[in-house]
């Protein structure tokens, strides 16, 4: 039984007043509040399809110059591929019935047994809902797979970079040990240099892998914060030191301003990841101009700002860059993981805080992180 007072927009293809009336009664008795538009021919049907949206089409099997099958074709051709189509018939032969069902008619109801009409309509509407859900699920799945594949491709590329140096260094050691090559002698300075480079690359790899794990943890809601009493200014200094070389290469000078120490209860590793991401971005997009990092206390919160005067971010991109694999500039031009800002936002929000960006194209960007000093 249809639920009470269920509205139903019916497009009725029927030339008999009497039959139309009986049909309306059947629908009302079945719990529907039908608004019925009756058409009797091809033109009428076309016009109705074009002008409004319908929940169901009910058609007499044959009218003087029009048939249900022709009507069905018209409906499908008009683009309404999912619109349920039912046939009502006085007497329809078995073969015609089979032909109609094969052509895509949802059901055939006898005029002498209109009590079957409402159950047929209900079933058609239910089937439609299921079809649509399935289609949407498939689309979401396909999209998710696509996103995953892109992630894997980026990951593979990113991981190979430190691996390249690592492999070359190790192989060169092997060569020197084997007495091959005209290379420099295998003396302490050379060994020290090689060891330092290898350490550096393994650290890079570790960091990358941790980031990838974080992505997975964040998406499955398993980001458990390990809070402890931490000095944000100390974290900022560490991040700056770690990115020193990179900043120098880009020509950017980094200044740290604000209080000498700002304490809070946060997950040091995760906040460090956020700092690294913001400062690395400032270096990447900062065009070699000065970068300022400010740490201030604002009541029970702290505000950390990372400001550059580089290429800036267009207003339409400012929300998008926090998307999972988004970047305001194409992958082609600035290789590397675009997940930084997304993860950063997840981490900051897990702490009860927020990240905001203010930016003007050509005028640089300012990323502000507001963090409550302790768990809410």
């Amino acid at each position, binding site marked *: 039984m249809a639920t009470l007072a269920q509205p139903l927009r019916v497009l009725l293809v029927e030339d008999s007043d009497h039959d139309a009336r009986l049909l309306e009664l059947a629908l009302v008795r079945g719990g529907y509040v039908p608004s019925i538009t009756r058409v009797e021919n091809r033109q009428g049907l076309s016009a109705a399809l074009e002008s409004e949206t319908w929940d169901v089409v009910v058609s007499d099997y044959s009218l003087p110059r029009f048939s249900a099958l022709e009507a069905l074709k018209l409906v499908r051709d008009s683009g309404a591929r999912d619109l349920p189509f039912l046939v009502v018939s006085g007497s329809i032969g078995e073969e015609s019935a089979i032909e109609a069902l094969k052509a895509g008619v949802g059901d055939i109801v006898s005029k002498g047994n209109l009590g079957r009409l409402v159950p047929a309509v209900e079933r058609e509407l239910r089937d439609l809902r299921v079809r649509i859900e399935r289609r949407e699920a498939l689309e979401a799945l396909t999209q998710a797979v696509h996103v995953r594949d892109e992630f894997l491709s980026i990951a593979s*590329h990113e991981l*190979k970079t430190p691996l390249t140096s690592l*492999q070359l260094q190790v*192989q060169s050691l092997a060569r020197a040990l084997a007495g091959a090559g005209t290379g420099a002698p295998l003396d302490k300075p050379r060994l020290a240099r090689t060891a330092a480079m290898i350490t550096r690359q393994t650290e890079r790899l570790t960091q990358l892998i941790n980031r990838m794990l974080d992505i997975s943890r964040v998406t499955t809601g398993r980001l458990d914060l390990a809070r402890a009493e931490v000095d944000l200014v100390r974290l900022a200094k560490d991040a700056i030191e770690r990115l020193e070389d990179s900043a120098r290469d880009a020509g950017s000078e980094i200044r740290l301003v604000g209080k000498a120490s700002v304490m809070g209860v946060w997950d040091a590793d995760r906040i460090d990841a956020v700092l690294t991401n913001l400062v690395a971005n400032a270096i990447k997009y900062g065009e070699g101009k000065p970068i300022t990092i400010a740490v201030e206390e604002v009541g029970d919160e702290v505000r950390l700002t990372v400001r550059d005067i580089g290429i800036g971010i267009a207003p339409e991109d400012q929300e998008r860059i926090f998307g999972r694999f988004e970047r305001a500039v194409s992958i082609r*031009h600035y290789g590397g993981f675009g997940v930084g800002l997304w993860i950063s936002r997840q981490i900051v929000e897990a702490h009860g805080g927020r990240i905001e960006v203010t930016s003007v194209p050509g005028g640089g960007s300012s990323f502000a992180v507001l963090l409550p000093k302790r768990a809410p």
Partner: protein
Amino acid sequence: MTDVLVVDDDRDTRETVRDLLEDEGFSVAVAGNGADALVWLRANKAPRLVLLDLSMPLMDGSEFRRHQRDDPALASIPVVVVSAAGEMPEKLSLMAASGHLAKPVKLEDMLGLVRKFCPKN
């Protein structure tokens, strides 16, 4: 004259390759992206070989190659392409490079190619 111009956006990779090649007796110059590489090539005598990373900021390997081939002064400099193996074969063949190395690069392969284009006199 410079034997090899190493073009790669990753600093550690550039420095590692430079150190290793210099250890083997080659003279090396570096550039961090396609645009810088073109600038260097126009300002200096042609190297005997360019080791070209494909994905770099500002101007990547493909674009660099296009500019290089369009410039008669630079077109004949041999280029060995270094890819991170995500790149499609069609893209690589379009570049008509003199050789190809896949990351992570094997030292012997790289030395082999460098020696081929920079024979010791």
